[in-house]
């Protein structure tokens, strides 16, 4: 057997395992082709709902996606789940082939990178809380840059005096960093175990997760609500 054929045969074995998992349920090969074509053609990640509207009624989109993920697992192009949506991307080990020698458009400052990390792990988080973690007042530009790139957004208001706005990450952030969801952030469990994600300042035993859902003490953001004075954090308070 040729080596290519062997490779494909391996894929086949994976596939068999895959389909066995589903107890005899077999992904329809024609549906597989359809999802393949749809995902290949699209420039944006597609979710299951979008895919199922294009497929015949009753098609097992989830099953097809699983099968497709297995088929492409070891290929030069992989099927990835980002932000709960599916997208073909080149295999990461081939980055050296494709990396374009374009200077990174905007080199983010250290402050911006840290702020992004804090927002992604601690969301929903207020400006004062970010400042508490970093121990320094934040320049207005930092949030603006991240907002402009489209990686963070204002997501609500905290039900505390002054009703400060809360920040969170966007879908574009997940897509850019290849994350299926906020819960898939690297090292999230370590941070949680160390208690570093506790409410700021530490309030007790509850260990909140970063979440896209509105927090218990968070109101949805209403852009029309008049802005209150949002002073910078008091360092001596900490």
């Amino acid at each position, binding site marked *: 057997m040729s080596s290519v054929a062997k490779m494909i045969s391996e894929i086949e074995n994976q596939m068999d395992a895959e389909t066995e998992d589903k107890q005899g349920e077999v992904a329809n090969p024609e549906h597989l082709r359809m999802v393949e074509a749809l995902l*290949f*053609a*699209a*420039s944006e990640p597609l979710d299951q709902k979008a895919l199922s509207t294009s497929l015949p009624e009753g098609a097992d989109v989830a099953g097809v996606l699983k099968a497709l993920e297995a088929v492409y697992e070891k290929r030069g192009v992989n099927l*990835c789940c980002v932000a709960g949506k599916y*997208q*073909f*991307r*080149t*295999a*990461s080990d081939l*980055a050296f082939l*494709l*990396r374009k020698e374009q200077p*990174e458009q905007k080199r983010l400052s*250290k*402050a911006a*990178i*840290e702020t*992004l*990390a*804090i927002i*992604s*792990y601690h969301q929903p988080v207020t400006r004062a809380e970010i400042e508490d*973690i*970093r*121990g*320094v*007042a934040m*320049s*207005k*530009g930092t949030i603006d840059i991240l907002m402009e790139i489209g990686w963070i957004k204002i997501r609500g208001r905290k039900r505390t005096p002054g009703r400060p706005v809360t920040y969170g990450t966007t879908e574009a952030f997940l*897509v*850019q*960093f*290849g*994350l299926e969801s906020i819960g898939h*952030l*690297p*090292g999230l469990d*370590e*941070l949680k175990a*160390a208690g*570093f994600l506790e409410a700021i300042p530490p309030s007790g035993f509850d260990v909140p997760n970063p979440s896209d859902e509105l927090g218990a003490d968070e109101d949805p953001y209403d852009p029309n609500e008049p802005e209150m004075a949002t002073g910078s954090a008091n*360092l*001596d308070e*900490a």
Partner: protein
Amino acid sequence: MSAEQAENFGEFEATALANDDEALLIQVDGFEGPLDLLLTLARNQKVDIAKISILKLAEQYLEFVESAKKLNLELAADYLVMAAWLAYLKSRLILPQEKGPDGEPTADEMATRLRWRLQRLDAMRAMSTRLMGRERLDRDVFGRGDPEPVNVVKLRTYKDTMYDLLTAYATDRARKLGGKAYRPQMAPVLAIEEARERLERMLGKISDWSALTTLLPFEWTGGNRRRSAMASTLLAALEMARDGKVQLQQASPFAEIYVRDGQRGQDIPSEASAPGA
């Protein structure tokens, strides 16, 4: 300043941050605030941050601030606030353990809290490195370079109905038959000249006294058309009577008007013999 510190911070410079909220402040180059400075100092102790000596750390920080003053560097306010707080913490750490005033946390509790904050900042730094180290779209991994856009096919339906079709047909046909030139629509009026011409032509043909209503043109029937014909014919008859061409008579107001050729005899018909009254 210790030799170790000199090695690390000897070269720091003051930089004014232009175009920023903090433009008026002087920042110690390379440090992102007092906590960052503390974290760097803590790392220099080369022990686990969890076990770091806060007393030693406080001393190092205060030393650093002193040396900055000697170099005539004006430190940003938050560095000085931290210095004041650390000086206070240091004094309490040296003194025997006791509760602070008004249930203030003990010096140990304050030290633990600071240690925790340094650990947390350290952890978030590590996470930001991990996050930025991820394979990123369009830098490490790539999507389809030549996506095939969805073709939008317009499904045209027409709203035209039978009503539209028939309206179009009727107006189009009417326009064609009406000729291409503009023709104002004529009001249904019988011209007096026309009525007089008619009457003159009829003179030879009508017998003796004839009722004016019987002399009206046949096609001028109904409503306004008949009234116009009546009025015009009467006027024409009056003109002709003035010229002596006809004779007219009417028995009473609103009664039938009779006409006869002016050349005929002068005898007037009796009411009874008047035809078609």
